[in-house]
């Protein structure tokens, strides 16, 4: 299995993917965190959905990770795209047959791929967190935000929780991408279905039938990243997400194991 992970990591660190991911994640992290601090007194708000967060709120221990938490959902979408394309491209490029000749255990290929992408996602989340925190400190003076509480043990604890929650949420989105990649066997289709569903269709469904939000996968993945909310509890989101991903993974794994590799 370790050989599969090493081989997958070699593919994941190719410059086009690595630099593209660094640019995307870095750009998103910098953008969202900068908006929070640079538009602190703006009438159009400085947080998600036009909300405003004041300097005194940002001066609390939680202010350290405020910007990073806003990036969380988008890291999930980035992971969905990467996991989906890395999985489905093996079919479209025809490279799956090479992999299976060198490692005939299809489950080992799948598990190795998943572990390698998990590591990639972890690095991505840590990079986004580090950049967001650095920018928060850098812009705190200009926004007149007191950072004394950001260096407290409580802030450290909140940072760890945020990184963990966003990492879990990112993995959930990534796993969904991998499942779609295995089912659809085309990177474009898998990414299109995944992104459309999470960014558009779930929002339309939630708006039309309010009660559905609690049971939709993307909503629950995002809720894990936020550490739960007053509407949907953290535990509920964990349970619903686990249910979706276990069923989806089982179906995808069975198909991957049994399907002929004819391309």
């Amino acid at each position, binding site marked *: 299995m370790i*050989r*599969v992970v*090493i*081989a997958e990591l*070699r*593919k994941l660190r*190719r*410059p*086009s*993917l690595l630099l593209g991911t660094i640019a995307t994640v870095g750009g998103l992290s910098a953008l969202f965190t900068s908006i929070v601090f640079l538009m602190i007194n703006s009438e159009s708000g400085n947080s998600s959905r036009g909300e405003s967060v004041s300097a005194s709120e940002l001066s609390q221990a939680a202010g350290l990770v405020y910007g990073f938490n806003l990036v969380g959902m988008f890291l999930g979408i980035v992971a969905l795209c990467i996991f989906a394309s890395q999985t489905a491209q093996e079919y479209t*490029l*025809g*490279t799956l*047959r*090479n*992999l*299976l*000749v*060198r*490692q*005939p*255990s299809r489950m080992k290929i799948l598990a190795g791929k998943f572990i390698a992408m998990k590591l990639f996602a972890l690095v991505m989340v840590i990079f986004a967190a580090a950049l967001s925190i650095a920018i928060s400190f850098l812009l705190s003076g200009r926004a007149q935000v007191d950072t004394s509480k950001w260096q407290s043990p409580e802030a450290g604890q909140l940072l760890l929780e945020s990184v963990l929650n966003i990492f879990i949420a990112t993995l959930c989105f990534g796993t969904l991408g991998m499942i779609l990649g295995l089912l659809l066997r085309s990177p474009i289709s898998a990414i299109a279905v995944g992104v459309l569903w999470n960014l558009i269709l779930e929002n339309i469904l939630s708006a039309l039938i309010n009660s559905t939000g609690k049971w939709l996968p993307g909503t629950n993945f995002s809720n894990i990243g936020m550490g739960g909310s007053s509407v949907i509890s953290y535990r509920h989101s964990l349970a619903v997400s686990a249910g979706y991903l276990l069923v989806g993974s089982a179906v995808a794994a069975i198909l991957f194991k049994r399907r*002929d*590799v*004819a391309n």
Partner: protein
Amino acid sequence: MKKIAITATDLTKIYGDRAALSHGSFEVPAGAVCGFVGPNGSGKTTTIRMLLGLISPSSGSATVLGESIAHPERYLPKIGAMIEGPAFYPALSGRENLKVLAELGGFPLSRVDELLAKVDLADRGGSKFKTYSLGMKQRLGIAAALLPNPELLILDEPTNGLDPQGIQEIRNIIRDLADSGTTVFVSSHILSELEMISEYLVMLREGKVIFSGRTQELLTSNKPVVIARPEYEVDLAKLTKKIDEVGYSTKVIEGTVHISAPAEASAEINRLAFDLGITLSSISVAQPTLEETFFEMTGDIK
């Protein structure tokens, strides 16, 4: 006892209502070059994919290096394969692509540069795969197949897209491997290409095995052809008519009469021409080529 590298018994693969391979039975002896021939769509790639565990047979069985194809993990580490053209990651270099497969198979990374040199890609190993010409891609595919230092090498159409020099290089690689004891099972739809390198042949047509055995055995089973060229082309019809009357079958091809007859019939044909007052500018005996034999066996007209 003859050692066998591959056996297939009634191997069948059905897609919908079409049999890609129907009750295919054949053997490939160990240590030989065995050509796997047949027109496009005759079932060659399907058979190779079944032998490599990539697709499961609808019925029948096969063994590779003594192990059932139901357990490819038992024999694949000893096999090198290139199936249906080279498939690699376009954004990775040739060297990185080989390293991915070397790591996956647990082979030493030092093999990568050795093999790049062997297939004449040492100076382009660092270039991205997407910048390679078709011939270079094909050579990289062969390098990948050689990674495990295989006991059995399975190559599916390895010379597709290669120029004559590239084809010659692949032939040399195959011969070198066979000389060192590697079994090579190589498919092609270009029959003349395999005739030159294969000691054994498996012939497929429309999903059915129509011959499996020694190449020489197949070629000698077909009658040789006596080729007579009259001095003047106007005499072709008269000469053909006379030979037909004697009982040999004839065909006129580019100013010559091709007569299906044993080599000893040359003198008789020469005499017939003389009796008709026809001077032959040449008369020779030729063994039918693999391609001619194939068409003879299948009843197809080229």
